């Protein structure tokens, strides 16, 4: 009604917008531009993007589970497991000194490398195996949650413990190198920013967005997240939906493992072990609630973007590492506060 207050109106619209986190990130970037001269250096942009894709992929998987009012702590161990298993399949040679103690030595892994060593099919088979690992662990989680009605937090916490330990056990702590070149190419950039990772992440994001907004599965996922009983009575196969969501989460973690280990050029039993907070943090900053029923892929993208920009800018600021944590916490705090402010305004408008 009061159209006269233009700037205030605009501010309110920005604050209320679904793209708020994105705007916030942009404002943050603008403020930092004069301080960090190299912020817009092509190489930095390249860095930011290459950091973003794998985290985005794994965070999207988490989004599916969060919509269900679940949580998946095991994504980090999925990454470790599929990284190790995939590398075992693909590697072209393994050092006997390092790997003779591995339980896989002599069967799946020899000094000639893994099963598909130097085979032209190493890449497709390796990737298929990695995805299968993700799906399998996701299935186990989903099955326990849906069929046995075990609390997701504990189920995924336990599978996190289990599969992290398993990944370390399989290689006896050693990293596996000598992966096929075609695999390493996935994360290599051409035209400065375009890379296999970029393509994979964007395609995945688009598919995930379509799945959530347009498909039967997506709509049922929200329904189950809001009210499982009502959904079940309305003919939603709730158990299948839950299992599927955890499988998506595992799958995404496996894809992220492909991107991460391609970038690191190795299969790593501790891959991603510290990422959980970033994954869930990005989702929640993006606006996705732990209580379920809410969430969009675009929100996840903005949340991830925010987290990546934050980490990158803090690196570029060269703060003493003693205070870097405090600054990081403060920036997240501001973002969270602004989010609260806009929720209040939204409620007041209702």
């Amino acid at each position, binding site marked *: 009604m009061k159209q006269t207050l233009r700037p205030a109106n605009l501010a309110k619209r920005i604050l209320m917008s679904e793209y708020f986190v994105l705007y916030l990130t942009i404002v943050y970037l603008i403020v930092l531009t004069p301080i960090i001269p190299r912020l817009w250096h092509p190489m930095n942009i390249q860095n930011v993007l290459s950091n973003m894709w794998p985290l985005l992929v794994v965070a999207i998987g988490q989004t599916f589970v969060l919509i269900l009012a679940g949580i998946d702590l095991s994504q980090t161990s999925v990454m470790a497991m599929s990284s190790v298993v995939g590398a075992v399949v693909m590697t072209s040679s393994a050092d006997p000194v390092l790997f003779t103690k591995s339980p896989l030595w002599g069967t799946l892994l020899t000094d000639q490398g893994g099963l598909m060593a130097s085979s032209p099919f190493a890449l497709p088979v390796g990737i298929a195996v990695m995805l299968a690992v993700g799906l399998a662990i996701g299935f186990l989680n989903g099955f326990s949650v849906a069929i046995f009605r075990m609390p997701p937090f504990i189920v995924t916490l336990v599978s996190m413990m289990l599969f992290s330990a398993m990944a370390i056990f399989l290689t006896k702590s050693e990293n596996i190198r000598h992966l096929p070149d075609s695999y390493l190419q996935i994360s290599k950039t051409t035209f400065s920013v375009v890379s296999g990772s970029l393509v994979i992440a964007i395609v995945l994001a688009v598919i995930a967005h379509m799945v959530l907004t347009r498909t039967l599965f997506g709509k049922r996922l929200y329904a189950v997240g809001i009210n499982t009983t009502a959904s079940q009575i*309305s003919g939603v196969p709730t158990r299948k939906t839950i299992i599927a969501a955890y499988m998506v989460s595992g799958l995404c973690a496996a894809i992220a493992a492909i991107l991460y280990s391609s970038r690191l050029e190795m299969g790593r039993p501790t891959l991603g072990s510290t990422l959980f907070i970033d994954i869930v943090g990005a989702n929640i900053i993006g606006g996705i609630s732990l209580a379920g029923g809410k969430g969009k892929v675009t929100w996840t993208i903005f949340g991830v973007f925010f987290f990546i920009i934050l980490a990158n800018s803090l690196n570029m600021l060269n703060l003493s590492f003693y205070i870097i944590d405090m600054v990081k916490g403060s920036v997240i705090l501001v973002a969270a506060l602004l989010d609260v402010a806009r929720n209040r305004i939204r409620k007041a408008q209702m």
Partner: protein
Amino acid sequence: MAEVVFAYKNITKRFFGVHALNNVSFELERGKILGLVGENGAGKSTLMNILGGVLQPDEGEMFLSGEPYVPESPLDATCAGIEFIHQELNLFTNLSVAENISISSFPCIRRTPFIHRRAMQDSSRKLLQSLNLDISPNILVENLSPGERQLVEIAKALSTNADILLFDEPTTSLTANETENLFAIMRRLRDEGKSIIYISHILSDVQELVDDIVVLRDGQVMGGGPIADFPIHRMINLMVGREIDNVFPDRIPSIKDRVILSCEHVSETGMVRDINLSVREGEIVGMFGLMGSGRTEFARMLFGIDPYKEGSIVVDGEPLPKHNPQESIKRGLAFITENRREEGLLMDYPILENIGLVSLPDYSAAVTRLVDSKRLFKRADEVASSLRLKCNDLKNQKVKSLSGGNQQKVVIGKWLLKDPSLLIMDEPTRGIDVGAKYEVYLIMERLASEGTGILFISSEIEELMAMCDRIVVWSQGEVMREFRREDFSQERIMRIAFRQDIDYDMEEKVVVNGNE
């Protein structure tokens, strides 16, 4: 002249410029029960929220025993001796009955923060006894039936020795004798000098119970005075603002020969025993019984939500093996559950998504499983308008912003999209106003005439008698007897439901299925 305990004076409340209450004034006298009736949205709850300090009026004043009364929070209301018994229970299922009753003011050992358990249990036990509720004060509320929970809620309100008690639809989850019991208690409280405001959609109850009445419509008082001056038809006319001759539509039986559903010897340990039942095309079969008599439990088994041990269920001539809701839906069954909030609706979800939920697979492509939103919207819109659903925006408006009647229409709508051949309705008119009830009856009548079989569960015997072709009476997990429309008798049905008619019943139990 009786003493006025509480008075509204010219109360006006606007939301976004729209009058929710317009210049409302009336008085509550000591030792009287005042009935407050009106359709949903007439302003009853706004009025109560103002009384309870949840909302502040834009204009007008309130007086408590002649003194100005300006509550700023629910706590102020409690301090002023005003207690609310809401339709939605405010109980904590993880606490014991005694703890729930004294949650706001635990009795403590002297001045320590420690709860005086003995005192708490004793006072709770006394209150429960006064409500004729035979349960231990130490039992957890989650183990109680809905009716028992309602009584605990009332005990909680009584525990504060409030002067003014407000009952907002307290009988919705009560069985007939629990209701009678409650009314007796309310009368006793009145005789002890308490003042009571009673809100209900069940006008016959209002008429039976209250001393005075106030009728609201569109935020205004349409009339008020001693109940004797307000026969039911006058109440209704004032509430809806037009002449309604009938509370129920005319029922034109349209039963076809084809049997849609037949159950034989369905049993489940501890729940139901040897249930035989059939429903034909276009037939409305009523299921009457007390709360916990097995009606709802049986309906859930029928729909595949809960398991059953023995017996067979045949739909459209084909047996339905051990199944789940998905299978039932495929076979043309639909189930409107008794509690909309928990089992019927996704309250935080838009109307369209709720209406579309059941039939989503019909609107999604074969391989990609992409949902054809346009087609779905078109169909949902058709159904919504055929149900006369009142909403602003099908796509974005959340269900929780709708009134109870319209929410129920959404539940019905989501099943209608599937064109079910058998519709199970469990208390479909509970907690909705007279106008909306009438519309629900019309929809049932229309569906039956189109050939849908309806299994209609209700605790309100009048509506069953008005709408059904047959009534099956339940008691303690068994079907006691069946009545054809021509044999309907309120008294006999009630007596059988209360098992006061066993011998008489046994003779006639020969007639089990309508088609015999």
